[in-house]
């Protein structure tokens, strides 16, 4: 139909499409997209004339093409996307020296509970944490697009049930919840960690010193 006539030769018919052309278009689409693109979305680029099989193969080729660059093609829950490698991260941060805001422990613990125990109500979260969960904590996670109310529990008050979103998986580079780090076994929880590490004293603990430390660890290449 008319859509195909937007641009010219390579796709006048699907059969005659040249792989290099397809890859070039896939690449451009993935580089310009704000969101990961799943296969069905990518296939719209070609009016669905390429099957998933072909697309997947070309995406794998594209991924290989980019190996060794400062940007890599990855496959996350929401689909395929390009992202800068950890290796160039240190350089890119020089352009934007302000560190993005860090989440408080309250937010992180709430997130963890939702991620591992979903779907949960606010009451469930409060029970596990042993303290009230302020609305702003849930708000922060919701506005980040990491959690969403997915329903209501059928009890008096019909509290909202929260679960993590695809966006959450995307932002953590995961393809599914199963890729979350496994929970530590209950009986090893305490013994496995050194006492010193756990002493919170006496800094303003909000985001947690240990966390900041580990961020550095992440972005710095493992030299030793």
């Amino acid at each position, binding site marked *: 139909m008319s859509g195909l006539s937007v641009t010219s030769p390579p796709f006048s018919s699907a059969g005659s499409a040249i792989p290099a052309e397809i890859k070039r278009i896939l690449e451009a689409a993935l580089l310009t997209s704000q969101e990961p693109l799943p296969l069905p979305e990518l296939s719209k680029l070609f009016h669905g004339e390429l099957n998933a099989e072909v697309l997947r193969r070309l995406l794998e080729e594209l991924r290989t093409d980019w190996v060794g660059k400062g*940007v890599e093609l990855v496959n996350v829950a929401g689909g395929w996307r390009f992202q800068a490698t950890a290796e160039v991260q240190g350089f890119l941060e020089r352009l934007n020296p302000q560190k993005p805001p860090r989440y408080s422990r309250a937010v992180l613990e709430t997130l963890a509970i939702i991620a591992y125990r979903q779907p949960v109500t606010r009451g469930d979260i409060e029970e596990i944490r*042993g303290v009230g969960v302020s609305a702003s904590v849930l708000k922060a996670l919701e506005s980040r697009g990491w959690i969403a109310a997915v329903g209501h529990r059928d009890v008096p008050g019909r509290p909202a049930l929260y679960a993590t979103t695809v966006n959450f998986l995307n932002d953590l580079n995961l393809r599914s919840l199963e890729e979350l780090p496994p929970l530590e076994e209950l009986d090893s929880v305490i013994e496995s960690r050194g006492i010193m590490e756990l002493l919170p004293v006496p800094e303003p603990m909000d985001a947690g010193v240990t966390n900041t430390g580990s961020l550095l660890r992440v972005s710095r290449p493992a030299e030793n």
Partner: protein
Amino acid sequence: MNSSLHHAGAAPVAKICGQPLTELPADLYIPPDALEVFFETFQGPLDLLLYLIRKHNLDVLDIPMAELTRQYMAYIEMMRANKLELAAEYLLMAAVLIDIKSRMLLPAPVTQDTDEGDPRAEIVRRLLEYEQMKAAAQRLNEMPQAERDFQLTNVWIEEAVTERLPEVHVDDLRQAWLVLMARFQANRRHQITREELSVREHMTRILRLLQGHKFVEFRDLFSRAAGIAELVVTFLALLELLKENQVEVSQPRTFGMIYVRPISYISAI
């Protein structure tokens, strides 16, 4: 169980915080200002308890309740002494601890199996579960996060370089026509005659065929593959064009060729 339990054992819940504070935690010489800050580092009573368990190297699976309660109450009392506001959860936990402690003082139920009757079971479960989630939170935080730890590509895309043309659906036409008819009738009280669309279509086709030609042979106007109905419609279209003075039909010789000429062509000469 040691002697310090002795008076606490019977303490009613209401008296929790009136419980005599035998000693300040030796390690906790913090100026009152800092105390609040310090206290705020805890996410709640469970967090504080975990801290105490670790700090005093207690066995979480076999918690000496008297010791833990004493430590906990010391902190609570310190907060109260400094008139710092204390979340209700902390007081509730104090009650829970004292309740457990007192139950442990009772003689073990004669008949029951021992393990399940341990009054500490529930608090231990909660502590472990919370600790598990704390650890999970920390590990989540250590995972690379989009924007914080890696950037996503963001290549510029020119909006609408190719002009997007409006799409029209037949329903749009139908609707437009409907409105026109309604308006026409309302304004003019004048019936638009129904007409076979196909005649109109063939009028257009004939005119298009004639375009740019001096004349076209009559029989060339009729498609060889056409059925009878179409032949009739084409003929009607031709008559209509004649009536509208669009074409001129001539037959120079009797039974000879019939020519159709567009009037526009004639007058353009």
